[in-house]
């Protein structure tokens, strides 16, 4: 039961006590003030359905125009799209600005307007057979959504802008081999600022994904340096984990910590798992060609940022001892920046011992994480930690199934032990939970 639901239940009880004469009306009012209930929460249903409706209707309009009826004269098509765009935006803004009641509906209509704006760009391109550098259409569309997202301000418009700017950046890279640094800068600087200012976890989540993808699209010379992609993803993942702790200690948006945490840990566990395979070091994580200036910058900038962020975490959590997070994990978290340093060593030194120089310590780190998460899950009755730890342990056993455990007897034994550990974990978890309740 959430706190809001609990307060509502207590308020219901207070009404009964007041009716039965157990408390006076004045006392009842004092009690009610102790258990406040929000007048109205965020109308998520309205936001989600109006946004989804707007996006799907907009896509429908784009496809309808794509049919390209010759029976409709071009000026009629232009008038139709411009008129519809103006009408939808007009109605949307009227509702958005007029009253709080229709604000979300107005926001949804304005999102439909921005979808129609995109449809209009493709329609004008279709009417005049424009084939000039087509990624520009995504840029113009994205900037239109960005401007409206900022001035309204509107989270759905900002999310659409993030998707379109990432698409622009990706298409420029894939089709024209052009690096568009403006995309991650706009995402982090403008939309990131908006997410922070509006305290929107949803926008922040979309931005973390969009930023990571757009940064990968702007990495230079990846044909000669494929390891740069892996290092960047790992560095960003570990940086998000550091930010998960820092935002709780600083700033005005501590609620963003779980968003950074989910993205950071997911990226970290996946990259750590890949590092457990010696082939990663042998075939990908080594420098074969000379490093240009831009490759050095793209490699070292996120690396240095990550280390600085972790130094701040270390200083704040250990030296100052000021961590407001009661559910903060233990010391195993410091293994994350250690993996970043290990990968740096792996890249600088050639793959020795058949790639095990890097993958052996990574296997141990993954095992440490698995055991630490399972232990914390049981001790603090955190089901998420217990399940993640179990998955990591099973994944590690599967990874080593072929190259360590030669004999079927040992393979069988290992799986029996892991099964027993997970059974024991389940038992300990249930017992701790029972103790806490009693």
């Amino acid at each position: 039961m959430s706190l809001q639901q609990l307060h509502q239940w207590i308020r219901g009880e207070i009404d009964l006590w007041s009716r039965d004469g157990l408390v006076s009306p004045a006392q009842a009012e004092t009690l009610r003030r102790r258990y406040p209930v929000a007048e109205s929460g965020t109308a998520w249903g309205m936001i989600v359905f109006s946004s989804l409706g707007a996006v799907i209707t907009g896509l429908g309009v784009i496809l309808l125009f794509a049919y390209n009826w010759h029976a409709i004269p071009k000026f009629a098509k232009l008038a139709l799209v411009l008129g519809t765009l103006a009408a939808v935006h007009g109605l949307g803004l009227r509702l958005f600005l007029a009253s709080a009641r229709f604000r979300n509906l107005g926001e949804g209509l304005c999102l439909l307007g921005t979808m129609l704006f995109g449809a209009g760009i493709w329609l004008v391109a279709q009417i005049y057979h424009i084939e000039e550098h087509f990624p520009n259409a995504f840029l113009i569309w994205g900037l239109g959504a960005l401007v409206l997202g900022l001035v309204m301000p509107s989270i759905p418009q900002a999310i659409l802008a993030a998707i379109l700017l990432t698409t622009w950046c990706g298409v420029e890279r894939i089709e024209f081999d052009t690096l568009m640094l403006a995309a991650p800068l706009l995402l982090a600087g403008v939309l990131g600022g908006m997410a922070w200012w509006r305290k929107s976890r949803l926008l922040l989540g979309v931005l973390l994904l969009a930023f990571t993808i757009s940064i990968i699209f702007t990495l230079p010379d990846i044909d000669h340096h494929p390891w740069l992609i892996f290092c960047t993803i790992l560095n960003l993942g570990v940086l998000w984990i550091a930010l998960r702790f820092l935002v709780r200690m600083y700033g005005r948006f501590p609620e963003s910590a779980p968003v950074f945490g989910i993205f950071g840990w997911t990226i970290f566990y996946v990259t750590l798992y890949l590092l457990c395979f010696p082939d990663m070091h042998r075939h990908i994580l080594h420098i074969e060609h000379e490093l240009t200036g831009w490759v050095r910058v793209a490699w070292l900038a996120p690396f240095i940022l990550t280390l600085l962020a972790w130094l701040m975490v270390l200083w704040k959590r250990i030296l100052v001892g000021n961590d407001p997070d009661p559910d903060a994990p233990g010391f195993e978290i410091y293994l994350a920046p250690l993996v970043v340093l290990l990968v740096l060593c792996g890249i600088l030194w050639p793959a020795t011992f058949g790639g095990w120089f890097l993958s052996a310590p990574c296997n141990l780190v993954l095992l440490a994480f698995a055991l630490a998460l399972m232990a914390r899950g049981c001790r603090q009755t955190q089901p998420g930690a217990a399940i993640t730890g179990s998955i990591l342990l099973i994944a590690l056993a599967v990874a080593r199934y072929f190259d360590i455990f030669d004999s079927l007897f040992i393979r069988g034994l290992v799986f029996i032990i892991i099964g027993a550990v997970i059974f024991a974990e389940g038992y300990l978890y249930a017992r701790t939970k029972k103790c806490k309740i009693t």
Partner: protein
Amino acid sequence: MKTWIVIGGAALQCLVLAYMATERELIFRTGRTIYLRTAPIDPRDAFRGDFVRLDYEIGHATTNQSRDGLRSQKQDGSTRKDIKVYAALKMHGDLASLDYVSDRKPADAEVVLRGRAGQGGANLSIRYGLEAYFVEQGKGLDLERGRSEGEIQIPLEMEVAVSGNGKSVLKGHRWSPIGIGLAIENDEQTATNNLSNRTVTNRVVVAATLTLMNASSNAIAVVDLPQGKSIDLGPDTIRGWSRNNWAWTSADQQRPAPTDADVHVLKPGEKYSIRIDLRDPQWFVRQGKEPPRAITGLGEWSDQFRLFYRPPAREECRQLQHANLIWHGNLPSRAFNGGGRVD
């Protein structure tokens, strides 16, 4: 104040769309109309529906056609993928062909088109933003299939409006009034393989017959000057990618003045053929200062050539009986190589 800013944000989207449409509409209405020959390719776009992708003849420029900064870039092979270029076009009636391409705006050109260039094999590949022709869904296939009568191909010509600053808009299309076909005569040639010391038999081209067909609904006249002088030979600059710089030895030869006997009036659907013997020294090619040689059996298969039907200019034909029926465009054949392979 805030209300006006929000309204301004929405109005901006409408203004951007209106600007895009107005800019193109102005070129459409006031720009000079020219025709560009092209070959349709395919496909479909997720956002804009069916379209025909167009591969223009002027979309390919050789080293000799590159000028100013492009020339030095071509020589050191360092042409970037996407550089702004200007194409200077020369006109044959209303049909335009590429004269040269430069990274500076030409002052002397009759018509200039703005585009973006990148390396395309040995040639420069240029995009003008005219490469997609959007049609109603399901109508693209007719254009893709093209018009052909057996071996005769009828080129597609796109109607383009060009503004003074080189920006252009596609207006429509038409089919060329004349179709062209190429038939190759091959022979067998024996040679000794130096490695295996064995005698091998190769197929080689010895002669070519160019057939012109009236593909319009009116009578059209073609001009066949004596000794095939209405035909030019040249390396395939349209889609060829050979790095050998072949030149036709008779390119600078004076052509005789046309007479009424050289003019052949073709009824709609009627054909006229011109045969040339490629072993005749008139049709020899050379590379730099090397001695001239026949195309026949020319080694590398990528060394491709085209025959061009190039009738005399309008001024030269003014005194002829059927002057008003003569078609004055320039028409390339399909590409072929010394081994008798036709593209």
